[in-house]
């Protein structure tokens, strides 16, 4: 896999092993990956193949044992914890399978969290939250808390929250894994739409063929290695 010049994400020879000795799990074994700016790439593979680990390493939630990960030219692995936190705050956003919403906050408040972390002006935050709520179709549910929303609605809130900070890279791990097919389709369409609308790069781990179809390209992960493009559509 060749490296595209000016790639938004550049992964080189990344290894990640959990544990040691005979019980060691080699989650990533020399992964190389480039993602161009504005590209939506789907990571495809069976459970335990290393997709999530790769996403964690790219998003700064985990550190590789070997190799380098550049996001917008920044070596994520070389950053301190706080620098990684700032990277996540300013450039990378996550969408988790379990949504990862704060249970005591309303939908609007959850969406506003990234902007609060950046201490954006209140008026700007409120405008953007309102816009994102409209975008994900949850304006009528702005004041509801996560436990008062359906799974699809929660995931849409999670996506809106991920977009709130205008990240350069969206990392999503099985964003439709816990949703029914209809809701999942809507969420996938939403991700595709906002990636195009916001001009961001997206790296999505998924089993869903529809999502794979919506991606610009799909990469297959097998036993911690990228084995080439996945079949789409």
């Amino acid at each position, binding site marked *: 896999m060749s490296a595209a010049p000016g790639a938004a994400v550049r992964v080189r020879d990344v290894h990640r092993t959990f544990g040691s000795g005979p019980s060691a799990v080699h989650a990533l074994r020399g992964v190389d990956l480039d993602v161009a700016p504005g590209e939506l790439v789907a990571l495809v593979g069976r459970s335990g193949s290393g997709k999530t680990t790769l996403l964690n390493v790219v998003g*700064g*939630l985990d550190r590789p044992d070997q190799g380098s990960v550049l996001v917008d030219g920044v070596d994520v692995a070389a950053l301190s914890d*706080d620098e990684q*936190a700032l*990277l*996540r705050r300013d450039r990378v956003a*996550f969408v988790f*399978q379990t949504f990862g919403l704060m249970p*005591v906050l309303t939908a609007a408040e959850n969406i506003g969290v*990234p902007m609060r972390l950046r201490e954006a002006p209140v008026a700007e935050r409120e405008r953007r939250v309102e816009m994102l709520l409209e975008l994900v179709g949850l304006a009528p549910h702005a004041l509801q808390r996560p436990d008062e929303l359906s799974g699809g609605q929660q995931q849409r809130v999670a996506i809106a929250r991920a977009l709130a900070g205008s990240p350069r890279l969206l990392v999503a791990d099985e964003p439709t894994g816990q949703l029914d097919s209809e809701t999942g389709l809507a969420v996938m369409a939403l991700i595709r739409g906002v990636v195009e609308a916001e001009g961001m790069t997206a790296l999505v781990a998924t089993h869903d063929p529809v999502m794979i179809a919506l991606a610009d390209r799909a990469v297959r992960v097998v036993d911690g290695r990228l084995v080439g493009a996945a079949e789409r559509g």
Partner: protein
Amino acid sequence: MLVAVLTVMVAGASVVGTCVLLLTASPQRALQLAMVRTPVADVEVGVALGFPEEPDDPDVSEAVAATARDASGAVAEASAMLTAPFGDLPTTTTTWTSTVMRYLPADGRPLRLAYLAELDDRDARGTLATGRWPDAPGEAALPTSAARALGLDVGSATTLGEGPGDGVTALTVVGTFVPRPGPAWDEDPLQGAGVSPNYRGYITGYGPFVVAPGEVAASGVPLRRVALRVQPDLTPATAADLTRAGAGVDALGKELSSALGDRTQNLVVDLPYARTVHAARDQRGVTGSGVLAVALLGAALAATTVVLAARLVAGRRAAEAALLSARGTSRARLVGQAAVESGALAILAMVPATALALALYQVLAGAVGLDPDVVPEGGLLPLVASVAVVTVTLGGLLVLPWLRTGSTRGAREDRVGVVARSGADLLLLALAALAYLQLRAHRVAGGATVDPVLVVAPVLCLVAGAALVLRPLPLLARSAEARAASSRSLTWPLAAWGVARRPQGAAAAFLVVLASACATFGIGFAATWSQSQRDQAAATVGTDLSVPAQLGALGTGATLRAATHGRVSPVTSRPVTLGSRAQGGDGAVQLVAVDTRDADGLLRGRLPSGDWADVTSGLAPAGPVGGIRLTGTSAALVVTGHVADDVPMTATLSLVVQDGDGARAALPAGEVLLDGDPHDLAVAVPPDVRVVAVDTRLAASGDADDPDQPSETAFDLDVTIPGATLEPGGTWSPARPPSSDYVVAALDRITAEDVPEGARLTLDGTAFLPGLFWSEGTLTAIAFEPVDDVPVVVSARLADELGLAVGDGVDLALGPTPVSATVAGIAAYIPSQPRAAALLADVDTLSRATLSQGNLDPLTDAWWVGGTLPDDAAATLDAAGVGPVTDRTAVARESAEGPLRAAQRAAAALLVIAAITLTFVGTALHTTTALEAREVDVARLRGLGALRRSVLRSVLAEQAVLIGVPVLAGGLLGVLACWAVAPLLTVSAEGLRPVPAALVSWPWPAQVATVLLLLLGCAAVVVPLAARAVRRATIARLRMEPGA
């Protein structure tokens, strides 16, 4: 978690166990200590057998007459009965035996009476001045005052006879003595004065003539009074000894009356021991109420903590319970399993709780001076039983959440819960209000029983207050949350959201509020209670130091001033007759007269408003006292008298002298013939005194039936005191006897002048015949304007009872002397008589008023000393033999720290310790659980890009509000409860409303330090836990999330 729950159970049970030990073991020990420390006069028992003046009177029964002649059998019987209650304890028996009055030789003088007495503790009752005590038949010793008045000295002989001129009992004086002051002379008909000018009408009484042991019976003079007193030595007494003695003494009154009642004319049983024991039991009851209240508060705190722990445990195990339920486990089985676990915990907690309670008891009881036994008296059964009950009860509370497992959730349940909580809060409030009203009305049970209102009221008020305080907290949290929404950052809004939207903190907040309130209330109440004990002691003593007056009161003030450098005043303190209010009993009106010129320097006791100087202004006399200043310690008098018409006349002179502190006493000078010749008299006087009155008892002899006898005759008396000088100011005036008196002589003119050899007083008067043949003429020249009216301040109680107002007149009687008084003010109480219907007067005014009527009776009953005194003033005075000294500070210390009250202080300290401990444990429980539940949220925030320190700040802010606000609110609640309830809970040692009314005390430094300790202690618990939770909640936790 289990360790924390176990800690709470141990702490709660040990608090209750310690209180049980303070209630069961310490009272016995305290009673022992208190009885040993009680002055012997307060633990003695006595009986006095009275016999008629004329035992041969036909109206007197044979048994009484026979006993009056030989009381040995009755005395032996009484002695055996008085010592019996004390079993094997050492006892000391003293006996006073005195006879009826007999006549001294007439010698052409007015009639004089005297009596014999036999004392078996002569050295304790008197100090020999000359000679020795009698030890052979016919020997006698008598008080120096009597010897001087009778002209007797060692070697003199006299007789006592049945009638004037009879000589039945011959006596030779072998010694004179000065009676020691003290209650021992209460038995004496002359109260140890030696001379009473008006013993029987106008007949002067002298005595006692103390004779050798057995000589009273040998004299054949009938007995008038036999008094026995038994003083036990309680040092080796055990609690069982005291209980047995108490029961025996309680029965003594009836037993003595039954055995001796028909052999005496009157029988007076005096049982100070019983009074002391009953007072001690009263104090024990009051103390018990306080200790029980603490036990109840401790139990409430522990129960709250356990309920909190139970909820947290149930929350943690909810998933496990749900799984078990889903797999078919019945709720009953789940509850049973929880009960078994709780029971095991309870059993596990029993041993350390028992040991901790025992250790706490040892420490606390030792700290307050109870010197506890290693194994408390009464055994460990009460402790073990109470600990078992508390641990099992607390264990039962752990099961409660499991009873609700599987119940339906939703809005309906919430509404039911809200209604139930509101109802419980309202019920609590109603009960607290009821208890408060009961306290305000002082419907508490005084005496030895534990009062339920005193026990329950503080608990109800604090628990209800804690419930009430929590009510507005959610509203405040919502307000903070609304403000947080408009913030740019996440840190503080996140904390506000957490506070407002996580209901799990309510139980912890309740615990913290209640514990903090208990701590500040405990400190405030202890301070209020202690201050009230000091105030009550001040009101009871009335001044800083009080000593009973010596029989020769003059000059004592100088001794007191030299030892204390304080403000010294002679004091009159005695019951008086006021209108129909007779002396004696609880309803007696007490008169207190002091030097009011510097009342604030002398009088002690807090007033509701103003000070004692304001209250007593106007009581002191305006005009000065003149008089004749004496030099040295002996006044030599040259007395020359003339009588017109050659009527044989004698004058018996007494000088009323005043010392530098205003104490006055009449000193007999002797008798002279008014024959125109100068006669020398000498009077021993203390240094630095002046003569403020000269009293002359005029007697004449002649034939009343002689028709040539004039109906009146003029006389003059010239009294010259060489070396003396007239004091400036004051005017010599004749005293004005009460109009009801039969006047046989009157002073027409008094002239005082300085002469070359000294000062001279000339009295010109008229004697009325033949009246003067039959009775003495009493003539008193006073060195001031006569005082007809004494302004007094009356106590509110007396004013209420008699409907007195300022300006009203009241007629008092000091013994036979009437005193007209006018109400000049009304005070809440009178110093030294806090609960009595009492009057306060100026001692100088009162003395002038009685001297103005020719009454020479001494008015100095005590000496008071006020001011900033040396710490060892009381000890110095005791060592100097001036005493017994009543020290206000010592009385206050005994009231607040004495063995019978010490348990109250120990319990208050225990409450504060328990409250602080349980606050920390509860905070740790709540924080640990809350933060564990938050770890995923924290990880999510980290995943979103929040810096660790920012998240930590937010978590700490949330916990600071959840813990800090309840600590502060609880602190304020405790202060509020203290303000409202503490003065009402503070009662006297007898369980009565204190006088003066208790005023809430604010030990701000201690209160603030306690709140700070709670805040810092909670911070010390929360900060490491929060830091650990944030550290643990790494983004790695997100990776572990399913699918993350």
